[in-house]
């Protein structure tokens, strides 16, 4: 059987060295990014405009997983994007090689293992597990039975103060019209087992703090899952003040981050009460609202954070009676974009723009507390760029620096100078109006030329405006396994 590439028509796929086992591909084509544990060989490969993940496996599995991932993508499930299946590979001697599944590398994603070059705190572990519980509920609502839920089979992205989990391994999964109780409970049972195994493995490696109890963490997954499932699928019976009760129920779901797109309402037989159940809920309530207002495409908790800031801006700076869309536009131009643009190029691989914004907000709050007065956003950014970003040990650029480790006194002493500097600069640098990409701009940089020497930290980044899609540069996660 000749080489056969089925899927996205990407010309570069044809030029990859398919006649070599993936393990032997030349390192200059490989992107050294962190990975979870897996049975198959998985490597990341650099193409001109993106990084892809390639997994070697047999043709049937690859094909099945490809179809499954595509279906999940269609349903809007958070997961890696499948690009193609490569089959009919042979080596130079004409002997068959395994098939390959190509997926898009999920940018800024963190396999949980990459974060453990130092002991893992309980708090971080629980955030991972909480994110996994949300992912599992979302997948189950869509009728997806995973069959192999684990920390390794999910990817995590920072999402404001939380993580958001994405599905990465759909090999054992199955789609159904709706899941049975048994399927859901078995999936969470598998998840518990796997999480315990994974955490015990970290323990054996000395990468888990003594206080972390793998079983308690696994139980937490079950609890979080049950809570969220119940909150989203419960049936409520109302006897009075029905319109208000319904509105409240919808708001409740919104606050959990879900929109209700189909509601099932029935009168009880005696006509005395109304039985109500949200039939179809879609995750991403805040992300959608932010997208509608600003065109920014960010994760749910980041969106919450940005919306809070936007709403505050509308109340305090713009005007509450101002058209929402108009204030959003003002906020984007005057607050969001200048903030993320103040981050010098060499630091842009560390975090997504929306995540930077979230951190700057945190930092601003921290400074205000320490200085005991309000700190302007541009000053907060400058301080963040000067004091937080550069000094961060590499892996903390991923995990976040606990505020307690920053030196408040020093930074507070800095503030007057920074304020003067910012004011002087704002006279010269024009505002980049109307850029709503929300992205750093530009194509993927080569992993190994992280900081361009001739790129002065304060120089303005190139900005692309074509789409509202986020297309940030490849993210180098420090402390990663190197190929």
């Amino acid at each position, binding site marked *: 059987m000749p080489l056969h590439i089925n899927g996205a028509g990407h010309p570069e796929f044809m030029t990859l060295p398919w006649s070599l086992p993936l393990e032997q591909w030349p390192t200059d084509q490989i992107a050294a990014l962190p990975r979870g*544990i897996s*049975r198959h060989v998985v490597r990341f490969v650099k193409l001109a405009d993106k990084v892809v993940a390639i997994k070697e496996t*047999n043709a*049937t*599995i690859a094909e099945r997983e490809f179809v499954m991932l595509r279906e999940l993508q269609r349903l809007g499930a958070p997961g890696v994007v499948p690009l193609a299946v490569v089959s009919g590979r042979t080596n130079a001697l004409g002997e068959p090689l395994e098939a390959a599944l190509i997926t898009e590398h999920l940018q800024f994603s963190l396999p949980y293992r990459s974060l453990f070059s130092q002991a893992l705190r309980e708090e971080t572990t629980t955030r991972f597990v909480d994110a996994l519980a949300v992912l599992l509920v979302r997948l189950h609502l869509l009728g997806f*039975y995973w*069959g*192999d839920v*684990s920390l*390794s089979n999910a990817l995590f992205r920072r999402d404001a103060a939380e993580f958001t989990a994405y599905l990465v391994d759909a090999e*054992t999964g199955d789609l159904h*019209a*709706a899941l*049975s*109780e*048994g*399927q859901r*409970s*078995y999936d969470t*049972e*598998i998840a*518990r*087992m*796997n999480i*315990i*195994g*994974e955490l*015990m*493995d*970290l323990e*054996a*490696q000395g990468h888990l703090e003594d206080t972390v109890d793998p*079983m308690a963490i*696994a139980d937490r997954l079950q609890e979080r899952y049950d809570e969220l499932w119940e909150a989203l699928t419960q049936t409520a019976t109302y006897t009075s003040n029905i319109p208000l009760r319904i509105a409240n129920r919808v708001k409740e779901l919104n606050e959990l981050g879900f929109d209700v797109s189909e509601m099932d309402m029935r009168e009880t037989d005696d006509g005395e009460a109304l039985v109500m159940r949200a039939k179809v809920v879609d995750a991403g309530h805040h992300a959608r609202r932010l997208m509608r207002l600003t065109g920014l495409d960010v994760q749910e908790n980041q969106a919450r954070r940005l919306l809070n800031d936007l709403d505050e801006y509308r109340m305090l700076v713009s005007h509450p009676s101002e058209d929402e869309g108009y204030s959003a536009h003002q906020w984007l131009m005057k607050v969001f974009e200048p903030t993320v643009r103040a981050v010098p190029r060499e630091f842009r691989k560390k975090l997504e723009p929306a995540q930077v914004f979230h951190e700057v907000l945190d930092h601003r709050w921290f400074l205000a507390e320490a200085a005991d007065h309000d700190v302007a956003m541009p000053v907060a950014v400058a301080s963040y760029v000067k004091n937080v970003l550069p000094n961060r040990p590499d892996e903390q650029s991923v995990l976040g620096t606990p505020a307690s480790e920053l030196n408040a006194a020093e930074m507070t002493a800095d503030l007057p100078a920074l304020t003067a500097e910012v004011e002087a600069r704002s006279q010269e640098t024009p505002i980049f109006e109307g850029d709503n990409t929300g992205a750093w701009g530009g194509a993927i940089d080569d992993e190994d030329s992280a900081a361009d020497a001739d790129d002065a930290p304060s120089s303005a980044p190139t900005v692309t405006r074509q789409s509202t899609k986020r297309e940030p540069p490849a993210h180098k996660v420090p402390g990663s396994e190197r190929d």
Partner: protein
Amino acid sequence: MATVTYDGASRIYPGTERPAVDKLNIDIADGEFLVMVGPSGCGKSTSLRMLAGLEDIDDGAIWVGDRDVTHVQPKDRDIAMVFQSYALYPHMSVADNMGFALKIAKIDKSEIRSRVEDAAKILDLTEYLDRKPKALSGGQRQRVAMGRAIVRQPQVFLMDEPLSNLDAKLRVQTRTQIAALQRRLGTTTVYVTHDQTEALTMGDRIAVLKDGVLQQVGTPRDMYDTPKNVFVAGFIGSPAMNLGTYQVFDGQAQVGRAKVTLTRDAIAQLKADDKNHVVLGFRPESLDRAAPNAEGAIPIEVDIVEELGSDAFVYGSIPNEFGESKDLHFAAGDSQVVVRIDPRDVPAKGDTIWVTIRGGEQHVFSAATGDRLNAPTIHQDAIVK
């Protein structure tokens, strides 16, 4: 260890009319290796998932031992799905990889150690217990994963096409290993496959399903010698049984130019609905070469001869100058007949050979219902391929 009973168990998927599994009744003995087999979509995976608790049971019940588990959650059924996921943890020893699930179940250390050691003995892993998985071969790693299921000492093992992703050679090897392992452990096992060869070689008994309906349960020998209907006859055995619909005159089936005398019990069972037709089946290995025009001999025109060293097969057709028989073939391809012949006496393409069906190796089915008409035959020397 325990028996398993499907008691009229049905599954109707929401939005479908026909049950995916229709009133399934099977009694599986304690320690038995039961294989469910059938073509794609026959309901075998659904049946297995019903037992695992992953699929609701819409009607009937399922019992494990003397416990009705119909409404019991999967994790409380004391059943292990083997090969579901076999992640191995790189920094844990082989022993810990096998035993960690027991730790979760709060089983005490010495008990865990002894169960792990027992499992390791059975799996030939004793000397590796204190090593890390990295030091193991692929096959050994797979056995460690099996060990994880074994140490839990579940009442029942479930396996759904565990070999489907292996290449042909490894498949045959692993098949033998699983069967041997199951016999050593003596744990009741339900195994699903679409491959009848796998079913025949592994199962103590086989259950054949079609369209959600159980067709027959029996030992490999039963299925091979006495298929209960045309479907089972065509499904079990490789190459498949030759099947055709022929008209009956005076107790004889008109097969092409030949008249084949049918057993008396079969003739006695013929009903009006059969309109004097039967489905006659004979396995490729149930035929003897005969002289041209010998009594009861069927002429076969040779299309292809396949020589396999110890065996040879003729693929041919029955010349049909009378035109009164409408062929009804289930697996052997268009009006094709397969004959196993002596590899030392091989005809040429285009030759006509004559064969008779060996005594007691006829399979006669109703042309109307497909059900078997002749009584079970008893003989010793048919070869299960």
